[in-house]
């Protein structure tokens, strides 16, 4: 049963297992263990970002391609729900239509980008996706009659989803289910081909696998994952705006989570997202204490200023790329 559920890909480390079970239990019981609004928000954000980061890991860690358009798909999901709910009323039909349209649009764009630019080198793909994502961000802020511009859209959901408990468990349940699906994908024969493409594109092609096709499918799957994450986030926040979905800062956050958690290990996305979101919400309080304690020293308080928390995660990121390419999970799994 468990083997099937995890697709035979066990954490393979006691500490890692303990951490994962801990996170799972904490998320599953979050509304009862941490009743405050802030902590429930943190828990929902962790669930959404686990899915978002896991789908990105499928691209970066398993297929070895860097895309900067992941937030674009995240945003399409959010705006799909947002626009449908804000313009078409709060019925289930509108919600379904918004979700369907978002998924279809993401699939179409991912397919187009993939077929056009995945034939060429990784760098080219990264640059093209960056340009397309920037264009999309501009589009969202320009078409303010539809998207609400910089202010975004605040909307109401169908009656049932207005309940915090229900919507939390929808977010958590869908994220968990799709995480297991992604785990299934990377451990399937298809996932093995992706790994072989990451290791040696030329040989995979020589073995008879069409690299472009596999990469494009991976790109589409990742895009759909990100879109669902966007949908869930919109359902949780009941708001969609450029800063919560499309901003380049979120892309940087995703990169940090994937790399620190561990590229090419689905479980890394769980750890990465949890650590990052916790750091985002609680590290600042800690840094404020340190910064205040050092108030007299020149420059040091600035380095430890609560708004500079990203600096330290950036340093950690660089160290991870150099010394632990498989991140925390790789470190935990390594035989001693």
């Amino acid at each position, binding site marked *: 049963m468990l083997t099937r559920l995890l697709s035979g890909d066990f954490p393979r480390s006691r500490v890692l297992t303990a951490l994962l079970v801990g996170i799972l239990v904490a998320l599953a019981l979050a509304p009862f263990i941490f009743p405050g609004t802030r902590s429930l928000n943190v828990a929902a954000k962790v669930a959404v970002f686990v899915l978002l980061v896991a789908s990105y890991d499928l691209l970066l860690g398993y297929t070895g391609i860097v895309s900067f358009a992941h937030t674009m798909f995240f945003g399409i999901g959010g705006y799909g729900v947002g626009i449908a709910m804000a313009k078409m009323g709060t019925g289930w039909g509108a919600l379904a239509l918004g979700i369907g349209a978002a998924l279809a649009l993401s699939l179409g764009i991912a397919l187009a980008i993939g077929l056009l630019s995945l034939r060429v080198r990784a760098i080219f793909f990264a*640059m093209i996706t*960056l*340009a397309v994502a920037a264009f999309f961000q501009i589009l969202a802020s320009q078409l303010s009659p539809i998207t609400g511009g910089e202010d975004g859209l605040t909307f109401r959901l169908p009656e049932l989803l207005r309940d915090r408990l229900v919507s939390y468990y929808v977010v958590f349940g869908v994220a968990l289910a799709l995480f297991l699906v992604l785990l299934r994908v990377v451990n399937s024969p298809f996932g093995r081909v992706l790994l072989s493409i990451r290791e040696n594109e030329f040989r995979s092609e020589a073995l008879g696998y069409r690299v472009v096709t596999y990469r494009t499918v991976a790109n589409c799957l990742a895009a759909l994952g990100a879109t669902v994450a966007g949908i869930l986030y919109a359902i949780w926040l009941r708001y969609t705006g450029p800063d919560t979905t499309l901003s380049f800062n979120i892309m940087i956050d995703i990169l940090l989570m994937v790399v620190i958690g561990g590229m090419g290990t689905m479980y890394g996305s769980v750890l990465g997202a949890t650590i990052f979101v916790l750091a985002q919400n609680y590290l600042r309080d800690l840094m404020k204490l340190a910064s205040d304690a050092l108030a007299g020293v020149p420059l040091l308080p600035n380095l430890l200023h609560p*708004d500079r928390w990203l600096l330290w995660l950036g340093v950690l990121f660089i160290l991870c790329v150099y010394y632990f390419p498989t991140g925390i999970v790789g470190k935990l799994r390594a035989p001693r």
Partner: protein
Amino acid sequence: MKTRIKTDWLPLALVPVIALAALPLVGSLPTWVTLTVAGLAMGMMIFMMASGLTLVFGLMDVMNFAHGIFISVGAYGAATVLTRMTRQMEAGSLASDLSAMIPAVLAAVALAGFLGWFFERVLIRPVYGDHLKQILITMGGLIVFEQLIHVVWGPDMIPLPRPSAITGSFILGEAAIERYRVLAVIVGLAVFAAMWLLLNRTRIGLLVRAGVENPEMVESLGYRIKRLFVGVFVAGSGLAGLGGAMWGMYQEQVTAQMGMQVLVVIFIVVIIGGLGSVGGCFVGAMLVGLLANYTGYLAPKLALGSNILLMVLVLLWRPRGLFPIGKA
């Protein structure tokens, strides 16, 4: 024996063709002149910022996603110097303006160049040849140094004053032309000419061009290609700093994110020109600059998307950019 390489005129002709095609659309000649000068000035500034990136890519096969940091740092460097020189800047004569601007620009270039040296040495050197890690490492560098800019210069945007003699505009015929834009065009042309001479008429340029074509061969002939790499990287970063200072003065304000915001346009220019090609980068920058200004006047809603549209069209015509370089 000297072999002449046939010059590829078609993409070069694109710039005047677009400029002339815009004339009947814009309608009035003075407006067109103003727009064209603005477009060329913008293109020159973009070229200054983009040329280093494309040269570094051509020579070392490194795409630096943190290039925007050099732009921001250059702008901050210039702002730091200029805000301390208010006396010279308000004097109103060109000479005193230049006495403030030249140190500011030198500071920008030096600061960005030094940062480039650090970047090459510490961050990029261990990951030559591994594109995935290069992208990740340079992104990491971007995050850290953007935060460090906040640490050093504070989190808020700072105003970058423009010297008095080059603000305002003058009238040529019936067209109003901003002085600063003329200056940007002059500086841009000078940079392009200097780069062209350096690359085509000197021994170092010969080595750089040979290195772009075939680094192993240059190395086996006894030249230290690594030293060449560092030099080109520092020069490219310095140029980005210069471009950043010019861009900051143009916008009259400096933020840590400004480099990242321009970077998207720079990438488009580099892709349009053909990765690694300096001439292509120049043509691409002119095209982007002109088109942005024409569409900004004719169809403001389209202006921001015009770059992407241009890129798609160019790639449909020449999938590897206007002037593709040997390896790609």
